[in-house]
């Protein structure tokens, strides 16, 4: 919360120039709302391209919803027909291959944007006061997106679909006493079967709209607490700010172009590179594939699950890894918002990111020998970053001086 409310100058409201616009706006304030967001609301003028990933995640969500809607017109959520209906989409439906590959590659691209967006927030301290609720809404959306992606992967009813669903739903059986009944309830039977596939399709269709709702709450919170920026310094004067339009509309367009270039590269040249070939084998409840691997975006958390030799312990450590993100605003005791002015933090953050990538790599390695020890060490480092480094580092760290204002920071760079 800036002590005084900063707003860009904006004099020519459409409602003053047009009687029709005024008539509409007096009854439904869409015009003044848009004008507030696009012209009046003060955005820090020093936002870097790291700030593009929020809108990129937004457009990735739209891509998923639209391609998914068209896929659902041809897909059949029944264990006897699901696999064949996906092949029907691929071979018979006009441009069905395109819709499906957009949707499959799009899920991966969505996670690329999400991870970049979260990494930016973690480096620049975007979770700190007054943005705690903004950050928590983000973590909630991350969880919802993971749930949606997981259930979507089950729908083609291939071997990885079936066994991924079996392993992940069985995580809940680790909880004492009620575990087994929870799993039976989730399945709607005594194993992953037709009732499971049906409800996963229903929820996979529903959840993206829940995410859209969460995005709106995320944005309301963003416009209340204001955007963070690379300097971490608050908006102080009008000189610090610029309107969203045309500055960030055009900057976001650059981000979209870069994003869709990468998207297109995978979509048209390597559409199956991010999936598992075993999912082109129809589901068989009698045979487990020798090596079950989740989608790449779950791998770091899967590695944490497998690092622990105890069933309940592994499940708790995995859920705990996400819980760390919720606790982040309380764990980081530093008064400096942006990591750019924290020399030691920068080093630890780099270690954390590299460690997270190694965890991801270990998640797809076989669970044996040296890999188990390596995943234990990396799991420890993951937790140590949250529970040891962030709370205690500020006691030893000598921070660099923060810039006087956003304007001063901007001028030092240009």
């Amino acid at each position, binding site marked *: 919360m800036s002590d005084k409310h900063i707003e860009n100058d904006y004099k020519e409201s459409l409602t003053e120039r047009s009687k029709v616009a005024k008539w509409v706006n007096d009854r439904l304030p869409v015009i003044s709302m848009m004008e507030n967001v696009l012209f009046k609301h003060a955005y820090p003028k020093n936002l870097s391209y790291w700030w593009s990933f929020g809108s990129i995640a937004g457009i990735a969500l739209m891509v998923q919803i639209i391609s998914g809607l068209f896929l659902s017109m041809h897909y059949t959520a029944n264990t006897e027909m699901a696999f064949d209906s996906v092949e029907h989409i691929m071979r018979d439906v006009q441009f069905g291959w395109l819709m499906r590959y957009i949707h499959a590659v799009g899920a991966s691209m969505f996670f690329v944007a999400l991870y970049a967006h979260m990494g930016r927030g973690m480096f620049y301290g975007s979770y700190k006061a007054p943005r705690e609720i903004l950050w928590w809404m983000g973590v909630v959306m991350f969880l919802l997106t993971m749930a949606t992606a997981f259930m979507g992967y089950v729908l083609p009813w291939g071997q990885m679909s079936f*066994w991924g669903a*079996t*392993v992940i*739903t*069985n*995580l809940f*059986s680790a909880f004492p006493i009620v575990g087994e009944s929870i799993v*039976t*309830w*989730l*399945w*709607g*039977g*005594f*194993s*992953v*079967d037709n*009732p499971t596939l049906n*409800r996963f399709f229903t929820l996979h269709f529903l959840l993206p709209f829940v995410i859209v709702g969460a995005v709106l709450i995320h944005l309301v919170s963003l416009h209340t607490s204001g955007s963070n920026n690379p300097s971490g310094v608050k908006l102080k004067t009008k000189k610090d700010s610029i309107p969203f339009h045309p500055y960030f509309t055009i900057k976001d367009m650059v981000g979209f172009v870069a994003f869709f270039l990468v998207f297109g590269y995978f979509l048209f040249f390597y559409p199956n590179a991010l999936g598992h070939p075993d999912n082109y084998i129809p589901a068989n*409840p*009698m*045979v*487990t*594939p*020798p*090596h*079950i691997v989740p989608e790449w975006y779950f791998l770091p958390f899967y590695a944490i699950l*497998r690092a*622990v*030799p*105890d*069933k*309940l312990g*592994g499940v708790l450590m995995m859920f705990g890894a996400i819980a760390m993100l919720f606790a982040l605003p309380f764990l980081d005791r530093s008064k400096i918002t942006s990591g750019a002015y924290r020399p030691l933090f920068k080093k630890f953050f780099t270690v954390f990111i590299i460690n997270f990538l190694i965890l991801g790599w270990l998640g797809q390695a076989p*669970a*044996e020998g040296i890999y188990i020890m390596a995943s234990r060490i990396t799991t420890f480092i993951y937790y140590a970053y949250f529970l040891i480094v962030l709370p205690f580092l500020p006691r030893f760290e000598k921070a660099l001086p923060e810039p006087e204002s956003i304007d001063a920071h901007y001028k030092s760079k240009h």
Partner: protein
Amino acid sequence: MSQKTDSVKDENRRKILTKTAYTTTGIGAACAIYPFVMSMNPAEDVQALSSVEIDISGIEVGSAKKIMWRGKPVSVRRRPQNEIDEANKVDLNTLRDPQKDSDRVKKGKEEWLVTIEICTHLGCVPTPESGEFNGWFCPCHGSQYDTSARIRKGPAPKNLAIPPYEFLSDTVIKIG
């Protein structure tokens, strides 16, 4: 009586009414949720598919037959004598889920081991006749079971489950 005390009395009465209304609404909401939650549990027809009969006459010593029961793979394995001896030799104190081999088979039918072939860790189907203990090895997360399908190593917490079953005759087993 003055008007003041009357009004205070009224307010207290009103609070009780309000609380009663809230409580009743709460109970009502909980009752309304119940059928929705229960609708997600196994349907009657799924619950009804609860027993199957298997002809075991063709199973050679040292081999097994797999069938589906409630959507789960069940293995009926005819064990050679050395596997039974191996299972009996194990010190129960060393087991994670201690159970005698004789408690996992029917008396007089020790060579027949009937198990739900689902790893008690996260539900994969383990590979029979493999692993360090000549029993089952789960490829997913490396759990190992012995010749009595008891957990010996790896993350799984329990032995492979034994389904309810009975011998209808020497050659037919009814599971469920």
